[in-house]
């Protein structure tokens, strides 16, 4: 019977999925997972594949890709004359910053010859929230904010603060991670190209002053003190089959430091190198093993070394053939054997060895599914050890990680939210005190708390902080577990992050009822509507489905959950789309009236039904509820029952969740922790076994002892009279 109803549930879920899929408005036109030609990453004629003219208005012809990182020049022809009017570049040629989905948002950016951004176009993204949740027009509007902005300015998401030289952009509510990533992408790409074409001049940094240290070290000592560091890339990191040998295994160091230079090159070698360098120039050495070359096989004389560069802050320093010298050998005792070596010279005054810098290895990663090649970079930080710098290392304030910025910016709200979660758990942990004070006629000691939490969760948590947990987060975890676990990803939304800690802990301890019944914004909204409707006189229209039907329909939500899980294995995008079965996005994240009508209608129907049926969505459809219900089977502490509950139906009749079966047993997967049955449990007028005993004792003139944990009066045991 059960399997039959489960089957029916699955069928209904499928039907539901199909209808929701059909109602997707024009999803095909969006940039979501838009197919892009494979050549887009490699074809010299970039503009054959992408609409360059859209981002550099007025341009009518474009050069092939040039430079490292690559860009194209945009020209306007007038009377047979071609004038350079700007540049167009593809974000993924320059940076590899993943957005929320873990994949980059491929953006085409245009800039004029003065460094003003003239156009931005999203060619492809994999952001679930922007697929349907938030119309793509919002993202387009967001990136339009960059038009007319100078790439050299400090542009950040959020309000510009007094006294800070920064331009603030309006974020997209509900898609913080995406816009933070997108801001980095646009700004970094812009700066990189502007530097390369000479629009942005580097500001010279104070150069390093070496302390008078002049010893000769062995290789092991150099490695120990951090003067020689290592950057290894394994083939599997590039989507290639695993192999015993790394792809490249580079060891490198900064040669200007006298001790390091002398130890590596010997006295004469060091002297001769230093005489070749002009003031303000720097030399690094690299030795490497591994199956491939760090110099790149495509390197030809006159070209650029396209696999290694040095990065510092926002700047990248690439090497041309003129910046290359032979490394004739490593003198340091105990130096390893190597296949390949080089000395590279950095000639830019923007570089300073007094500050940390990175050795960056650039490569292409093959996507195993699609065979597409994506640009990736690997880097390792180098900082000259303090003992070589006069006065030690200068103080460096690293900008906070994006997620940390979010936490700092919203510290107050985060504090309040944590306090709320702790309060809810504390109140529930002390539920006994509340239920004992309540009676069937007066449940206010419990309800005052519960209703307060509902209102806070709807207003503050739901509409205010947009912190409605969702099944998509569960699916995202599964995926992160499989592909790439990034704490940053989860930390960027502090409220959801903290909420999930609460949910996991309380589900283990008490079951899902505490979250679902007390804290879920949508669940609370739904039940609040039911309660209000009852209070304003609609009670006679309110009903619950017959137990028989409830017991069949309740399986649908599990089918929805497993369906989503299965689909997500094949396509996360499709799963996210189907997750629209949750009305959360429409209700809280985007707003009822900002979405296409089918979504608004769906929410309206669910909330409308809530007037007549208690929590219809929670009982029958919610995949999140289902995913939490399953571990609730093993909650540590359940609700209490007496043997008499077997025949007495008082609680069962009152259970709005229909969680009590005909034998008086509570199904903790369905229970919403409303505590009505726990109020009855100690109500000496309403719980029949207690009432009986109360009457008996009153008649017999016996005292009414307190009610024990087992829900009965503590038995009166005659104590033998103490001897005088």
């Amino acid at each position, binding site marked *: 019977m*059960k*399997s039959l109803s489960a089957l029916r549930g699955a069928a209904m879920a499928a039907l539901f999925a199909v209808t929701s899929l059909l109602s997707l408005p024009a999803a095909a036109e969006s940039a979501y997972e838009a197919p892009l030609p494979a050549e887009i990453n490699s074809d010299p004629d970039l503009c054959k594949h992408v609409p360059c003219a859209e981002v550099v208005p007025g341009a009518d012809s474009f050069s092939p890709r040039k430079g490292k990182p690559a860009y194209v020049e945009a020209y306007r022809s007038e009377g047979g004359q071609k004038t350079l009017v700007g540049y167009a570049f593809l974000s993924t040629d320059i940076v590899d910053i993943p957005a929320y989905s873990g994949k980059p948002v491929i953006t085409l950016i245009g800039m004029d010859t003065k460094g003003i951004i003239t156009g931005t176009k999203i060619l492809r993204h994999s952001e679930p929230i922007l697929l349907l949740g938030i119309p793509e027009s919002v993202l387009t509007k967001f990136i339009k904010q960059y038009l007319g902005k100078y790439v050299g300015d400090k542009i950040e998401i959020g309000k510009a603060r007094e006294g800070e030289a920064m331009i603030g952009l309006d974020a997209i509510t509900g898609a913080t991670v995406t816009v933070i990533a997108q801001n980095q992408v646009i700004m970094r790409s812009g700066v990189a190209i502007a530097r390369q074409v000479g629009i942005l001049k580097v500001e010279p940094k104070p150069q390093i002053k070496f302390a008078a240290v002049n010893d000769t070290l062995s290789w092991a000592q150099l490695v120990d003190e951090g003067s020689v560091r290592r950057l290894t890339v*394994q083939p*599997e990191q590039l989507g290639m*089959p*695993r192999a015993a040998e790394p792809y490249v295994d580079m060891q490198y160091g900064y040669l200007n430091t006298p001790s390091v230079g002398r130890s590596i090159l010997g006295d004469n070698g060091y002297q001769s190198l230093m005489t070749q360098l002009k003031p303000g120039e720097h030399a690094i050495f690299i030795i490497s093993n591994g199956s491939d070359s760090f110099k790149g096989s495509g390197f030809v004389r006159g070209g650029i070394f396209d696999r290694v560069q040095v990065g510092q802050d926002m700047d990248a320093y690439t090497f041309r053939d003129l910046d290359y010298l032979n490394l004739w050998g490593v003198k340091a005792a105990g130096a390893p054997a190597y296949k390949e070596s080089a000395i590279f010279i950095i000639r830019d005054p923007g570089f300073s060895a007094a500050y940390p810098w990175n050795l960056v290895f650039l490569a292409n990663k093959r996507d*195993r599914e699609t065979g597409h090649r994506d640009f990736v970079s690997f880097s390792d930080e180098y900082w000259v050890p303090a003992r070589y710098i006069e006065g030690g290392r200068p103080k460096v304030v690293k900008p906070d990680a994006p997620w940390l910025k979010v936490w700092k910016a919203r510290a107050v709200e985060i504090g309040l939210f944590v306090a709320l979660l702790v309060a809810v758990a504390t109140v529930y942990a002390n539920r006994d005190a509340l239920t004992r004070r309540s009676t069937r006629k007066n449940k206010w000691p419990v309800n005052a708390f519960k209703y307060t939490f509902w209102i806070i969760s709807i207003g503050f948590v739901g509409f205010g902080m947009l912190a409605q947990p969702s099944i998509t987060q569960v699916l995202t975890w599964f995926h992160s*577990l*499989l*592909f790439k676990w990034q704490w940053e990803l989860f930390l960027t939304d502090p409220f959801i992050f903290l909420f999930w800690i609460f949910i996991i802990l309380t589900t283990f301890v008490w079951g899902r009822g505490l979250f679902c019944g007390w804290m879920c914004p949508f669940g609370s909204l739904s039940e609040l509507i039911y309660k209000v409707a009852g209070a304003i006189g609609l009670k006679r229209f309110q009903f619950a489905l017959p137990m028989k039907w409830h017991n069949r329909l309740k399986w649908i939500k599990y089918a929805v959950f497993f369906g989503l899980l299965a689909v997500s*294995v*094949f396509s996360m995008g499709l799963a996210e789309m189907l997750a629209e079965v949750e009305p959360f996005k429409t209700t809280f994240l985007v707003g009822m009236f900002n979405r296409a009508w089918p979504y608004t209608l769906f929410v309206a129907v669910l909330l409308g039904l809530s007037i007549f049926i208690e929590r219809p969505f929670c009982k029958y459809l919610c995949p999140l509820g289902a995913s939490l219900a*399953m*571990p609730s*089977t*093993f909650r*540590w*502490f*359940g609700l*209490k*029952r*007496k*043997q008499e*509950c*077997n025949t007495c139906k008082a609680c069962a009749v009152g259970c709005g969740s229909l969680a009590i079966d005909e*034998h*008086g*047993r*509570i*199904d*903790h*997967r369905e229970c919403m922790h409303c505590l009505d049955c726990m109020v009855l449990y100690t109500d000496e007028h309403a719980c029949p076994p207690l009432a009986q005993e109360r009457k008996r004792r009153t008649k017999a003139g016996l005292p009414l002892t307190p009610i024990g944990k087992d829900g009965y009066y503590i038995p009166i045991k005659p104590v033998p009279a103490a001897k005088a």
Partner: protein
Amino acid sequence: MIDPRSMTEPVTPPYVGGGALAHIGAEIWDHLWPWSRSGFQRQRAIQAAGLALALAATLVWVLAALGNNLTPGAIIGWWFGWSVFEVVVRLGSKPYVKEGPWWGQRYRKASVMDMICYVGFKNLLIGATLFIGLKSLGLLVI
């Protein structure tokens, strides 16, 4: 008479009653080993299928350990297939689940849904551990 304090009838697995350490050992064994002798007798056909499945699963893990990369789809497929099988086996051989906190010693008869929840959740934990382990050892590359 049905006891409303327990969702299904209380059951006592054979190992209950030993010392604390023996009990923990028996429980771990119980989590890892779905079969029991009595169940085995009753479900011969299923067991034969299961043996084949177990062999195939072992083979896949051995291959993985030898450095052949597994695709995520294959792993999840195996995980799912195994879990379904384990639910069926356990319903025949060890048809009980724990009630209340994990440190307690109360057990009850498992309904189909209880068993799905138990096996699904347990295998999720085991799977995640194996998966993260293999990944950090570099044996599994996605």
